[in-house]
């Protein structure tokens, strides 16, 4: 698990190169205005093809990616991540969506996005999320945490279970607190652990969400018309 602190570790000197992918020009310009000045928007794209081209050309630290995009084969954000697979470890994807649909959110996470936030969050929050993702961490909104708890179940893992198939008791606690609206800092305080440990747990959950082929997860997703 990559927990080394990247640009996000030092608030004074942090900066990030970002590409915004969204088919609504109004939203792109609004987001650009909202982002912290230390974040450099190096490119914008409105379709799947444009996005893949811009990302390949600019190699940004973070891509702010809308889940629903026109163009390509109709796969939206998922397709952009798949098309940029070669850059994946260096370029992080943060999914932005107005969608509440579990299949949209989980699909883009499973494609490789490092987090998911709703489009209604404030500029400060999204700036924070960008740095967090740039630093290798995962960003979970309360809703994504809720989806995870729904998908994995709220019972802690047995020893016999496959490690990927269930959340550990600690991970469950972290997910619950995030779903309750706690920030990472508040989670850390509540559980008497460091923020870094919280980030580790969240990243572990993200990995499980991306890699688990767990029966329940498949079933859960299928019920919501995914996969």
């Amino acid at each position, binding site marked *: 698990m990559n927990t080394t602190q990247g640009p996000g570790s030092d608030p004074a000197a942090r900066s990030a190169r970002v590409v915004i992918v969204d088919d609504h020009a109004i939203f792109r310009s609004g987001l650009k205005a909202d982002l912290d000045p230390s974040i450099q928007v190096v490119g914008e794209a409105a379709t799947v093809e444009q996005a893949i081209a811009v990302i390949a050309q600019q190699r940004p630290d973070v891509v702010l990616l809308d889940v629903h995009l026109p163009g390509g084969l109709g796969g939206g954000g998922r397709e952009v991540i798949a098309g940029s697979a070669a850059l994946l470890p260096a370029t992080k994807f943060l999914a932005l969506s107005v969608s509440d649909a579990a299949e949209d959110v989980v699909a883009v996470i499973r494609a490789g996005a490092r987090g998911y936030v709703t489009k209604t969050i404030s500029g400060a929050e999204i700036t924070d999320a960008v740095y967090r993702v740039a630093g290798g961490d995962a960003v979970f909104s309360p809703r994504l945490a*809720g989806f995870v*708890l729904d998908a994995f179940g709220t019972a802690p893992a047995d020893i016999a279970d496959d490690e990927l198939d269930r959340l550990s008791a600690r991970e469950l606690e972290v997910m619950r607190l995030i779903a*309750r609206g706690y920030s990472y800092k508040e989670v850390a305080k509540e559980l008497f652990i460091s923020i870094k440990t919280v980030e580790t747990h969240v990243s572990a959950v993200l990995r499980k969400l991306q890699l688990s082929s767990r029966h329940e997860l498949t079933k859960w997703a299928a019920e919501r018309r995914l996969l």
Partner: protein
Amino acid sequence: MTTVPARLPLVRRSDRFIAGVCSGLAAHLGVPVVHVRVAMVLASLAGGAGVVFYAWLWIMVPTADESARRQARRPSSPIAPAVSRETVPAAVPWAAAPAGGGIDGIAPPSRPDGGPRTDNASPRGLGYPALGEAAASASEPVRPPWFRFREMRYGKEILLGTGLLLVAGILIAQLLGVDVPLGTLIPAAAVLGGASIAWMQLDETRRAGLVDKTKADQAGGWARLAAGLALVVAGVLVMVSGSGSWEQTWLALLASVAVLGGVVLVLLPWALKFWRDLEAERAGRIRETERAEIAAHLHDSVLQTLALIQRRAASEHDVVRLARAQERELRGWLFADPGKDAGHLSDRIKAVAAEVEDLLGNAVEVVCVGDTAVTEGHEALIQASREAMLNASRHGGGTVSVYLEASGGRAEVFIKDRGPGFDLQHVPEDRLGVRESIIGRMNRHGGTAAITSSSEGTEVRLGFPAAPQDSTEGKP
């Protein structure tokens, strides 16, 4: 032209013995159906006139759903039918009966399969529905008369007329003492009868292609086709064998089968194309219905809200509130899980959150994990949650986070805000909000309530156990 516009249109009804002719006629004339039936039987005894009349009406008069479909096929705008029939579930508008009257009252309110057939399923025809429905539809707008007649009217009329003239001619000839070769006429009649049965089958299949008929009806159609075919073949065989030897007959039969095979070979692609066109048309119409529903919904909700927002643009608070309410409504419509039962605890919590949001204007974000049916004790949980949300929205002043985790009766609700917080010890005794409405209420119903508050925010934690101990606890 047998109808006066104010009358109920003449259609064959679904409450039928044979083809719904009598009941349709009764509804049309405003006469009890029994009278019509008796009259029909009496007329049948009078030289078969009733039978001929019945058959004529059977062929000429469309069925109720056929007629309804014709009317429904020309909506003035895609939105209009869906808007005006808001209470009718999705795909039904195509099949709403023209005789309107009590169908909404009789039919079950929700129809999960949503298929565009309803008429045959609705249990009409108890007693004398004719009079009541005639009265009910008297207030309906006058329908243009075109839909009552079919495109092939003249062809069929001429055919039937010719047949009747032939029969009359034969009868007269017999009366005049001319020897009529019945040996030829009977097989010919069989051929004619079989052909007409088969033609009716074509009519039915065309109908079945446009409306999703039940499988039983299709089986009936097949039986009819087989009967018609058998009659025709038998008639032809008798006719042909009467004029020559069996050997010749078999040869002729072989030849005709070969010719038929050739014809089928030629016509098959055409028939397949016809079938595909029909399917495409049907799919297109389903899409069109869906589109109309979406358009109607957007018109009813989003456009109205946008208009309101434009008028209230000066008040930021109102704009945010309207936008939130509309967002919530649209989300509910777009992302609602159709497989989930309605009215469970998560729905109730979401409804309460929506209410608080509307009341105070601050966003209330609800995240639900799991769900459970609402019991009596859960009502207290819901009310306590509402109180906590109100407090959080009022004093927190920002977004309120609500998290519900429920399974099998057990439920936990967390309500968190980021306001300045308060000290529970210093809440005045007379302030009942927290002490009574939240903590007291939960305790009385066997639940738990805890409040943690700091300068960074307040969180109310409500718990409700799975055990059904709430019923044994004291009631407020």
